[in-house]
């Protein structure tokens, strides 16, 4: 690193964050597991949908049934939020890359998107299981589902785009631009259940009738667990990517 570039602090592997990463991963896994256990032990069964916010499902009042399937919510929502957070980092590192043209930020953005893809797939799978059970269909063109599917397709397209470009600098610029545009779908996806009230998908984050404390505590534990897992995965992957880059650089030097 020469002196003129000193102004930009580059994320590097091997610092204290990487030492913390395995512990974060472990703590996240423990927290999430604890949360799931609490989910099944302390959190009450949801009476119909009254606690969770949907009154009408397919023009039917669903309130006379204890929904055990609602337990998946403690996995589904934290994972979905984690995926959106990871995409926010993709966009952030994309902006940083375009400002500085430092390849390091491109590595960060790519790693963040990879993390996002893992969580997006988890969200999709858990969501599909739930819709099959609760709405009776594997898939429906409901706004939240659709926008999230689009998000998944955009993230997959991000990797297809990266694979189709050979020049590293050009690949980094295009990926950064595409990552920023992709991020536009994240707030749309997050807000869509509020914008289109007829949407069947439950609105979770509200101020009026949220969750009871019995539900909120396991949810928050799962939520922070997932965030820690996302962080741990990101750091481990980033470290691996950085080491690979450094090995490639050393090999290049040796060949010269």
């Amino acid at each position: 690193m020469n002196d003129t570039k000193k102004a930009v602090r580059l994320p590097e592997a091997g610092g204290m964050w990487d030492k913390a990463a395995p512990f974060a991963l472990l703590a996240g896994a423990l927290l999430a597991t604890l949360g799931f256990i609490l989910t099944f032990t302390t959190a009450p069964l949801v009476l119909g949908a009254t606690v969770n916010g949907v009154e009408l499902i397919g023009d039917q009042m669903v309130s006379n049934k204890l929904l055990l399937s609602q337990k998946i919510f403690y996995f589904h929502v934290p994972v979905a939020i984690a995926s959106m957070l990871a995409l926010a980092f993709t966009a952030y590192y994309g902006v940083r890359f375009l400002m500085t043209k430092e390849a390091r930020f491109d590595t960060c953005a790519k790693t963040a998107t990879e993390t996002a893809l893992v969580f997006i797939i988890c969200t999709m799978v858990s969501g599909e299981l739930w819709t099959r059970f609760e709405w009776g269909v594997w898939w429906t063109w409901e706004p939240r589902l659709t926008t999230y599917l689009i998000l998944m397709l955009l993230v997959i397209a991000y990797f297809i785009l990266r694979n189709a470009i050979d020049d590293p600098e050009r690949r980094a610029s295009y990926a950064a631009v595409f990552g920023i545009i992709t991020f536009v779908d994240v707030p749309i996806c997050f807000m869509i259940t509020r914008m289109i009230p007829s949407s069947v998908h439950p609105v979770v984050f509200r101020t009026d009738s949220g969750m009871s404390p019995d539900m909120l505590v396991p949810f928050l534990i799962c939520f922070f667990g997932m965030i820690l897992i996302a962080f741990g995965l990101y750091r481990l992957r980033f470290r691996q990517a950085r080491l690979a880059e450094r090995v490639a650089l050393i090999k290049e030097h040796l060949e010269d």
Partner: protein
Amino acid sequence: MHHYLTLLKKDLTQEFRTKEMLTSMGIYALLVLVVFGAALAQTASGFDILQMSGGLLWVLIVFTSLLGLNRSFAHEKENGCLEGVLLIPLDRSVIFLAKATSNLLFLFAVEVVTVPLFYFFFLTTTTPAASFWMIVAPLIVGTVGIAGIGTLLSTITINTRGRDVMLAVLFIPLVYPLLYACVSATTAAIIGSEGFMDVFAPALLLAGGYDIIMVLLSWVLYDFVISA
């Protein structure tokens, strides 16, 4: 402004000389209509074409514009024209505006032909509502968005392997919210049932908002794409 007009004029002159984009897009659109004819040939007689026509029309527009957008940078690349344009000392976003405008004009030109053709082939057997003419609004808003995002993405994909497929892979998911809003506005206008404005106006507003965000983003980010 001066550069913008020059660049726009260059694109238009080139198109009028070769008629490459317009003819290929026009013929492609006609062929898609023929495919629609085959696809709908076996449907029952009581089948309500009005319900579907908004969606079909937008399928036609999206696929036709994909074809056109693929072409829009191909000849720039082939003839080394892009390098020439990049040598001019001017704000890169002007290139975006000029290119987006020319794409927009070509898309409009194709739509002026294809929408009446669509009407002729599929809607003469039924009677669309009196509000049919209002589909002009979603058509304009949707085409602006398609031209804006499409210009950015076709600049990206021109330098990638397998660029034709790549444009579709990037373009279709990105344009989806716009497509959704435009289809619902168009369908509302074609059916024109009681209180259709309750669907039409919010959908159009959504499409407009999406347009503004996407075109602004594309405009800002274009510099990084074209100089990469």
